[in-house]
């Protein structure tokens, strides 16, 4: 009897003391940390949307249309937040990723179709990131035949060796340079009355060029990969239906912040480039929007931001695509696997990196044009993802009481229909170039 007491009874004499302690200790736990841990995915995903393609699209929109397209940003904020929120909610309620749900609810054929669309869209975005790397380093006088292969090998190596996550923060910090647009916009002294008026007054032209810009704006803002991202990171964070409310705030906050930056990018390019009637053809010109703030260092500043944002996404996008596809089809996945263990996962990842790098190196390529075209591809494929998301989020068996409410559904379907209609128009206008120009 004695030894049993010796061995295990340490706690017994303290029982009374600590039983009182429980309440105190448990109450002492910092709850705030719990809340902060939930906040995150929405803000981060939305911020990541401002990548090479985003900067290029909004800079050229500002240069070409001045303040005339600012009105798009308000409906865009609402649509983006709604779409992101639906995916975040699905992640919280089901605990599963988007491609998991697509496979389990729609079967193999639909999954194949959606994954193909995602592969193309993400392939396009990956290309745009490598183009961003090329453009950024060309500003610093590094030719793209050097910068792009080095960057591609570095990204591939960092991801496969598992050290990418550590470098990621450096790239993230670099991309924060784009906050400079906010200051630059103020220093450029735009006509604020016009800015405000254009923010609320819709402007529309039925021309191929205008449609192209509009779809690029939508495509770069509500990118298909962002839906996959936010759902996965909500699942990964362990957010659940009970504590979901905070994530909803997080999603809206992130969206508003991201669009606010876009707002200032458009203003600063409009105030510096559009007033001189300049069309953006190169990164040098795009960088000029930062001159009110940085003067002669505008190009360097722009290059740093663009490089950081592009490197960040160039690593994450191919990886996320490979994960989505492997998840949907049940292939072995994980960066720590070998080619023999996970051929398709590593194959997709490598293919996208190589594809992005090769296209970005093609001689005589207009970098800004590539950036815009890839965003349009994104926009054209967006309806496919949106329809799938809407079907899933309204599936009562899956979501229970967390399905969309009626107003939400109307807003989401209106978004989907408008985006689809615009996509069809863009496809038509590129197939039949004279379709709209004659009506002008």
């Amino acid at each position, binding site marked *: 009897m004695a030894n049993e007491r010796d061995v295990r009874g340490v706690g017994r004499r303290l029982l009374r003391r600590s039983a009182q302690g429980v309440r105190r200790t448990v109450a002492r736990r910092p709850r705030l940390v719990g809340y902060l841990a939930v906040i995150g995915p929405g803000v981060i995903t939305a911020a990541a949307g401002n990548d090479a393609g985003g900067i290029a699209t909004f800079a050229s929109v500002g240069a070409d249309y001045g303040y005339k397209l600012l009105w798009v940003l308000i409906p865009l904020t609402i649509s983006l937040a709604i779409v992101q929120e639906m995916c975040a909610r699905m992640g919280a309620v089901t605990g599963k990723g988007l491609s998991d749900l697509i496979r389990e609810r729609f079967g193999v054929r639909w999954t194949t179709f959606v994954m193909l669309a995602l592969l193309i869209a993400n392939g396009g975005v990956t290309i745009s990131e490598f183009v961003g790397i090329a453009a950024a380093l060309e500003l610093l006088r590094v030719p793209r035949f050097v910068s792009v292969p080095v960057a591609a090998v570095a990204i591939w190596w960092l991801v496969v060796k598992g050290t990418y996550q550590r470098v990621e923060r450096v790239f993230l910090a670099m991309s924060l340079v784009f906050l400079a647009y906010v200051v630059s916009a103020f220093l450029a002294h735009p006509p604020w009355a016009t800015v405000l008026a254009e923010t609320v007054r819709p402007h529309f032209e039925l021309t191929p060029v205008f449609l192209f810009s509009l779809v690029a704006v939508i495509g770069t803002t509500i990118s298909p990969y962002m839906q996959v991202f936010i759902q996965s990171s909500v699942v990964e964070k362990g957010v659940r239906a009970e504590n979901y409310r905070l994530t909803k705030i997080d999603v809206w906050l992130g969206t508003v912040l991201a669009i606010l930056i876009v707002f200032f990018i458009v203003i600063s390019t409009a105030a510096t480039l559009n007033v001189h009637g300049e069309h953006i053809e190169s990164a040098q010109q795009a960088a000029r929007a930062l001159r009110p703030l940085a003067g002669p260092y505008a190009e360097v500043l722009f290059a740093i931001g663009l490089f950081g944002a592009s490197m960040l996404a160039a690593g994450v996008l191919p990886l*996320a695509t490979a994960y989505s596809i492997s998840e949907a089809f049940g292939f072995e996945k994980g960066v720590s696997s070998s080619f023999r263990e996970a051929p398709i996962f590593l194959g997709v990842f490598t293919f996208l990196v190589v594809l992005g790098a090769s296209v970005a190196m093609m001689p005589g390529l207009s970098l800004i044009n590539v950036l815009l075209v890839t965003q349009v591809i994104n926009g054209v494929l967006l309806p496919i993802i949106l329809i799938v998301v809407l079907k899933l989020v309204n599936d009562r068996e899956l979501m229970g009481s967390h399905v969309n409410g009626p107003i939400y559904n109307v807003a989401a379907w209106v978004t989907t229909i408008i985006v689809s209609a615009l996509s069809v128009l863009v496809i038509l206008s590129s197939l039949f170039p004279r379709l709209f120009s004659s009506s002008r």
Partner: protein
Amino acid sequence: MLYLSQVLGRPILDLDGERVAVLKDVIVRLGEEDHPPVAGFVARYRRRDFYLPRWRIAQFAENGVRLNSDKLDLSPFMRRDGEVMLARDVLDKQLIDVDGKRVVRVNDVQIIEADDWRVTGADVSLTGLWRRLAPAFMRSGRPVEVIDWADVGYLATDAATVQLKSSRGKLTRLHPVEIARLAEAFSYQHGAEIVESLDDETAAETLEEMAAERQAQILGDMDEERAADILEHMSPDEAADVLLDLPEDKAEDLLNRMEDEEQSEVAELLPYADDTAGGLMTTEFVTLPRELTVGEALARLREMAETPNMIYYLYVVAGEGSWNLTGVIALRSLILADQSAPLERVMRTGIQVAHANDDATEVAQKISEYNLLALPVVDELGDILGIVTVDDAMELLLPKGWRQRLPRLLS
């Protein structure tokens, strides 16, 4: 041999060969058997689902189903307990392959006619995927990778009533570390279901291998009595950590439901903050009074009803019933020493100790520096409170590895 994908959507013919409905699903009755038998079919006729019991079927083949009568009994379909619908609950879902220790996705289901039609395996191959995608003439007859249904440890379906009865036994063939890794690959609901399906002991060991937040989530959602039972089987330090991650009311409730002895061990650890030696330590260790001889000490160890995991270090205290730490003996020295020698002569004194409020990382570093398996934690009076073991210390020192799942965009 049939594949589910080949028979779905095929016509159901009556005795005269008249097409009466379309095959929508195959119902299987799960039980103790390795290969569960087909119990019936779901037929679809005019946008409604009907149930066809097995005995009404005369023929089941690639080109469809034939009834044994010319009457179609239109009883509406209702799922019963223990029944699984192959198309709805199995196809495209994930399951645990116990043999391969991995999570796979079902591309097709294999049905073989032996004494009866039975589900024999889950096709997880690319060929299975291709069979469902490609038109018939492009399909290859290549042999496929099929997981024997007997090795299916867990089926991640949303139909709560159909959990495999035999899955508990199959999963426990795996090491808790493996079960934890597999459970974490599923959604939190399914992960919780897996843990719940295990016996208390295995569930406790499995939980200990999972991420802290996940442990708290799973135990927090579980039936309180069951959660308390599992907590009792966990090591006190792990149990205390979980309780601290739970909401206050929940933690108190679970603690109160635990047996006295385990409760007191856990309760003692609760007041310490996470990042201190107290938060890191466990109360499972062996103390021996200094006046014993080596032989008596060994005899005591053998007599112990429940031996703590950590008995490589035996802590020598000032006397019977005392907690005052005076020395330590490694189990190896105890075995090698002269049986009649008193412990005081064999023990080492002047040992490394930590205090309950010491920084956890520093304590961990000390353990690794001095190559210890454990470090005792003492209070101001020199009484031993607990020990920090090397495995807990390691967790603190090792950098968090690259996550296997979809990486966070930024962490």
